[in-house]
């Protein structure tokens, strides 16, 4: 799980071309959008694409859970883990 969290941080930085942000700057519990890392709606789209491509998980756009899954790095890791085990 910790490996996955580190991997996700790196994925966020590279796929969204975030400057000046290191993995250590991303708090796994902090919100990715809004106040925390400050990602925007286009970032959300791009991160969704990157996550699906890398982890072969399926995101249901209509799912109310998606927002929850993308709330933080920790949530995202949990979601990917749960998809892998099914």
């Amino acid at each position, binding site marked *: 799980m910790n490996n996955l969290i580190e991997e996700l941080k790196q994925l966020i930085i590279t796929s969204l*071309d975030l400057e000046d942000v290191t993995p250590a700057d991303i708090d796994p519990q902090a919100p990715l959008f*809004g106040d925390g890392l400050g990602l925007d709606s286009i970032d959300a789209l791009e991160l969704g694409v990157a996550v699906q491509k890398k982890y072969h998980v399926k995101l249901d756009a209509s799912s109310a859970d998606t927002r929850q899954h993308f709330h933080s790095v920790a949530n995202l890791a949990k979601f990917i883990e749960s998809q892998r085990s099914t």
Partner: protein
Amino acid sequence: MRNVIPTRPVAISEHGALDQTAFWRRVHGLRAALASQPAQRVALVCEDSGWFAAGMLALAQTGRICVVPQAPQAGSITASGAHVGAVLTDRPGEFTEFTTLAIGDAPPAGDATASLPDDDVCIECYTSGSSGMPKCVLKAFGQLRREVAALEQQWGEQLGDALVLGTIPHYHLYGTLVRVLWPLLAGRTFVTHTCVQAAELRRWAAQHRCVIVSSPAFLQRIAAPAELPPAAQVAAVFSSGAPLADPFAERLQRDWGHAPIEIYGSTETGGVAWRVWSGSAERPYWRLLPGVQTELREEPAGMRLWVKSGFTWQSGWMATGDLARRHDDGRLVLLGRADDVVKLEDKRVSLSEMRTRLMAHAWVENVRLLLLAGPRRSIGAVVILNAAGRRQLAANGKLPTSRELRNWLRRSYEPVLLPRKWRFPEALPDNDMGKIEHANLQQLFARRA
């Protein structure tokens, strides 16, 4: 303008005066030397403005295209992509990869009759294009002559017989025109070298009443107006290349007694309008130069200013890069660059408005915003921090600093519009005209910082 030979010297240097006879014999001598030179396109690179003027006239009179590179270096000729057959220069040692014509070697010849080039011959000059590549602009001699006539009509009387000095190089078209051709055609004397220090201005002004041709790059760096020559010795100060920041214009008027005459224009359009400090309420208004017509044409970003005059590069109406509106009395109000409004993720945002918001933050001294290309187009912010901001940056690093500024903007803007890349240099990269070049700003984002 007069075709009789004026009595005043053409130019003056520390070594003495160059009188009319000697000047025109130089021109004729250069013409004779050019006769055996097959090159049609000749770059003109001179340190001495007197030789520069003689070279330009000789090239024009012999039907050559006079190419004036953006900077007086061999690399600038190559970079501009101007394919020149020869270089006419007073520094032949620096242009060894080209066929050079050493300007001082041509023996003076002929009589001293002042004959000006035909109106249709071309001067080829370069300006920094918006893409960052030098952009070639062709000027016919007649266009330059008509612009000089407009300047003389507007300010000739005020200048009288003042000596013309400049802090801007003569190879910028504004310098060529105002510092060299205007005095030459109007019979005033110009100083043959560019004054880079205020002390040089003071030295010349101690002996002559003078006109100072300058730019914000110089005027805004003068620590105190007392460094300038006494106001009584100065007939006028011209400033062009970029707008002069209000506090400087006001301070020069208040503490020195002279507000610079600012000229708005570009290499492509020539001079368009002018203003002089007369109180902050009057600041936005520009008066047209004699012979200039303007039109406003609607575009998605706003009303773009179009110009028509005898000195625009292309005949007919020419688009400027600026948005404008017309005041009731016909004066112009410039409303910023037309490319200031950018579209990001289908949303329109004004960079100057965002800049104003950022400037209101307690850490910020100055800002430039620009659109960055890439897989995702976004705004890049170049921020000059004030002392408080620099302390924050030193103590906490770049990310917390940019986050604070981003969050500050987030109160007014949707997240997708916020700058994604931030640079905190010590100073904005300006060129020797005091203009912040788009290309220099772009370069700050070429690599991670």
